[in-house]
């Protein structure tokens, strides 16, 4: 857990967590049923990204906390976000993660380059990459360490299991660092009458949804 320190502080301040409310939602009225709306929040692809060239601290400060007091850190521009759906097959996810990891800037191969360039890369790359990664982590500091993820799997509900499975699969690889973070999202439900002809006004309610982010990066 990369960002435990700020969140633990936040947790200390909160007496009752919004995602564990003391009063439960009332039962749905008789003759009604729940109709789930798609998750409302911005797509995981469009979280504010930090660009090493044009970083601005104001952008980071503008983000506010989740319902459970967790401030999602911004992501780096290169981070690939994969939304895990419950129907996705395990191997397809693994393949997508691998592909994204291979493309990650921290793991650039010289495959396909001309021979001279490859040789040149051999000479230059070793100190260069190590230096750059360390300097960048120093530069960003602890709060945004999540931003160093090369691939992030995002899953809610039934798909959490799948995302964690895939994360577990990649923990076997020695040169990878796998981090799992939990979050809470809010979902909106419609309470509609079962009988479509019935003359009952529809209601709306908010439900908390568990979410898991599995971050993977080259060690």
């Amino acid at each position, binding site marked *: 857990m990369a960002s435990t320190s700020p969140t633990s502080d936040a947790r200390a301040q909160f007496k009752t967590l919004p995602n564990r409310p003391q009063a439960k939602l009332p039962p749905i009225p008789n003759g009604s049923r729940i*109709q*789930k*709306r*798609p*998750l*409302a*929040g*911005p*797509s*995981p*692809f*469009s*979280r*504010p990204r930090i660009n090493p060239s044009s970083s601005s601290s104001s952008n980071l400060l*503008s*983000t*506010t*906390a*989740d*319902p459970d007091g*967790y*401030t*999602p850190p*911004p992501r780096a521009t290169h981070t690939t976000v994969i*939304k895990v759906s419950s129907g996705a097959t395990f191997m397809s996810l693994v393949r997508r993660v691998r592909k994204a990891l291979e493309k990650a800037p921290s793991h650039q191969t010289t495959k396909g380059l*001309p*021979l*001279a360039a490859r040789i040149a890369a051999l000479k230059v790359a070793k100190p260069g990459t190590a230096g750059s990664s360390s300097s960048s982590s120093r530069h960003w500091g602890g709060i945004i360490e999540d931003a160093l993820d090369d691939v992030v799997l995002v899953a809610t509900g039934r798909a959490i299991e799948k995302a964690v499975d895939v994360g577990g699969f990649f923990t076997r690889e020695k040169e990878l660092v796998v981090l799992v973070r939990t979050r809470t*999202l*809010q979902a*909106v439900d*419609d309470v509609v009458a079962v009988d*479509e*002809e*019935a*003359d*009952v*006004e*529809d209601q*709306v*309610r*908010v439900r908390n949804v568990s979410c898991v982010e599995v971050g993977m990066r080259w060690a």
Partner: protein
Amino acid sequence: MDGKRALPHGKGPEAKKRKDAPTVTKDGKPRPQDGRPTTTAPRSAKRVKFQDARNIRTQPSDAALDDGKLDLQRFLSTREFEIKALETSMRKCKTANATRVFQQVPRAMRRRTASHNVKRVPKRLRERAKREMIEDNTPTVEARKRRPRTTRARIRAETAKKLGILAARKKKRMLEKTAAGESSSGHNGLNQPMVHTRLARPKIRRDMLNAPPKAEAKFRKRQINKTWLPTHLWHAKRATMTAPNSPLWRFAIPLTPTEKCYRPTHRASGQKGVVVWDMSYMSTIGLYGTAHGVERVLRALGLTQDSLWGVRGQKWRAGVRKWSGILSKQVGDSRRDIGPATIVWNPQAPTQSDDATSSGSPKKPQRQLFIRTHPSCFLELFQELLKLVRMQTPQLHIEDLRFEIGSIELTGPGSTETLLGVLQPYYDKTGSEGRHSQVFKSLAGVTNPASLPKDALLAFSVKDPRLAYPPKRVAIPSEGTNAPLVETLTTWPVEEGLKSFDIFSRDCRFQASRLPSQKALNRRKGANAPGEPLQVTAADPPVPVMLLASRPSTDGQAQGTWTLLAPWKCIMPIWYTLTHYPLSTGGNPRLGGLNEQRQIAFEHGAPWFPGDFPATDAGLNWELEQRVKRKRDWDRRPKGKRIEWKSLDLGAGRKGEIGDGLACDFEHLFALYPEGSSQPHAIASSITDGAESMEIDAPERPGGTEAAKVTGPPAVALGLIRQLPKASFTSLLESPSPGKLPANSIVTINLSLITRGVANTCARIYRLPSRKPRIAEASAEAEVLATDPTSSTNPGSLPLDLRDQWLRKAPNANKGQGSRSRLAAPPQMPAGVDMEARTKLLAQSLVATELPYPRPATNELDIGGHHPLCPDEDDLLGFVTTGAFSLSEGKGTAVGCLSAEKALETVREAGAREGKLCIVRNAGESVGWLARWTLV
């Protein structure tokens, strides 16, 4: 060559093969010598370049031998040289490749004839393209300057020339006149108009059809039998349009973008991006009059649910929600569907509504509403409305607003973001920001319009989008801050301070259609500081828009759709800005055509109007047109390569396709044939048979034109079909007593194939055959159990266990059983038997042959030994109207129509689970596939 000179001993094998090119000097420039034509010189230069690049210089190793002694230094330097030569050659080959510059352009930017016209490649590559064209001696022809070949073209060219001369003469005369006027100078003031009249407001005649907007003179001749969309010129360059002589629904409609886009459209509509359509061809009808009269009219159109007129429909009637559904009309004693429509009410000012509710005041509340429908059913709906409206007292009125209100549709995760980037609310005074525009602006971060309240609607005025062109990417709040968004989505505060919507007002629409010209905007922009958006001035009218959010008709997590209604004349500026919006996920919105509309409906498993609604007049016409088209395509194929419907082998001795193979033959399903035709297969045989039956048919239909076919008997027969709504089907299913179904009624379903296979249009849908033998056979119950059950049946009748054969195909049925190809369950060794019994059983199984001895004819018991036979014709349920491989499901899915009566019977008999299994067989194929259908 340089290497050769550097090494005097060099006599490489390749060097011998190659002749020195005499025209090439040291620096590689061609020098025309020996009287060759200069045009070939660049070519030969290119060849030389290739040869030079491919040449790898080597050196024989004996060069390093000095008196039989190996000179190590020399030997090593030779090898070094060779390796270097190899490397340079590799590098050179790569650079001197044979590709031309227009091939490097990304696919979306490729243009037709880019190989012949440098202006078709992006500017940065134009120089290189020009050079390459000279090098390759590419013939360049400008279509404009080509000599006319046909008579028509020559006449046209001559006329153009004459007109040009005339225009020049006229211009000269005008110039002279002005010069004369300036010299006299007294008349100058008189020539200019003293009185400025307002622009003529287009007339909207009520209770009548209105003419399309008068086209520009240059384009008028092309719009005689059709109307162009406001974005026609934009689309015509980027999409395949309907053929000029066969417009669709009296419009020139983009069918599909010219670039390949099936998979990109799937992605953009579901995962990342946005697809946009110009849907201005959708027709809007305005209806206005007393509230009670309007209610009566709508009830007559099929909006009879009490929920619409009670508490639940309050928001709809207040004008903050829309209603979408199927309208219907009374035909005889049954109701026939007209088509899908969206109905929006114009909200009333609160004072008026108070009056209406408090007392029966003398002034009845006047309401106004829009009915937005599909152009294919517009005329039918308009006439039906006209009839209904005239019956009311006091009379209501309708307006044909087809060419007054245009629309754009967007779908995909980026759709809300795109709208936010393009539409900027217009406020005339500070603080007068409307509630709706506030709500709209707070929608940043919504990735799916389906997450808004059901049938949500927003109406406000926006600025001319060209003022802020090019559109900027909108700031999306970070993921953590979705609490205010969730708050908006739950409360949806749009009722506060509701005023009537501007888009309902004719004056507002007219004002908005007088946007400043692009030229004027450019002038203002030139005066402005660079990069600064233009300020709204008095010359920029507000553009009234309405946004409708709709969910996919099949409920789920699929993407919803935004529909943007705006005045017809404002569509083009909005469209132009829209297509250039930079999405936060990269790229721009994708263009969609009619086929993409169908594709997305199909991927959602939703029926598409009119194609999947054969029980409406519009759907009927569509089906008949498709039949004619399929027939034409079929006719065009050589005889050996087209399906001969009569000789199709369905197995068990059944020959010939059921009904017409080129049609969703509902006439055959319901045995609806015109009284005139004596034989039931008259329609089918005329198409299915070969030459001989054509001869027979010839006297019957001497014309054989398409028009005759469309208005002929099939239209009458198909017109008797009625659609049974989903709700009534489910209620019939739940009620214990078999209710009375309307005759010839169908239900729309979507089906997904369980195992394999893809269903195409016109595929036949069967139910599973019943277990009860149709012909009572006393023989061989025991025999069936003892040996292969199929062997005992008579030739020409279906196997008795056909249903079980099919059920075994379902994946959950044969869990644990390895063999899939076998129709019968393979014998398994019982658990816990000793070795002796095992050998015995094994010997038995080896001796006992599975194959029946007089070998049955092919396709007698099954199809090709792998597939069970298709059921008989009396198990035919319906037809697939749209079917393909679905990218969203990863397997074949389809939308189709079933006979309601048979479907009801099947589900009642076999239960909700097994009753919804069906067998789908493509027209002209004998193999069927197992599928499961669900009602939509």
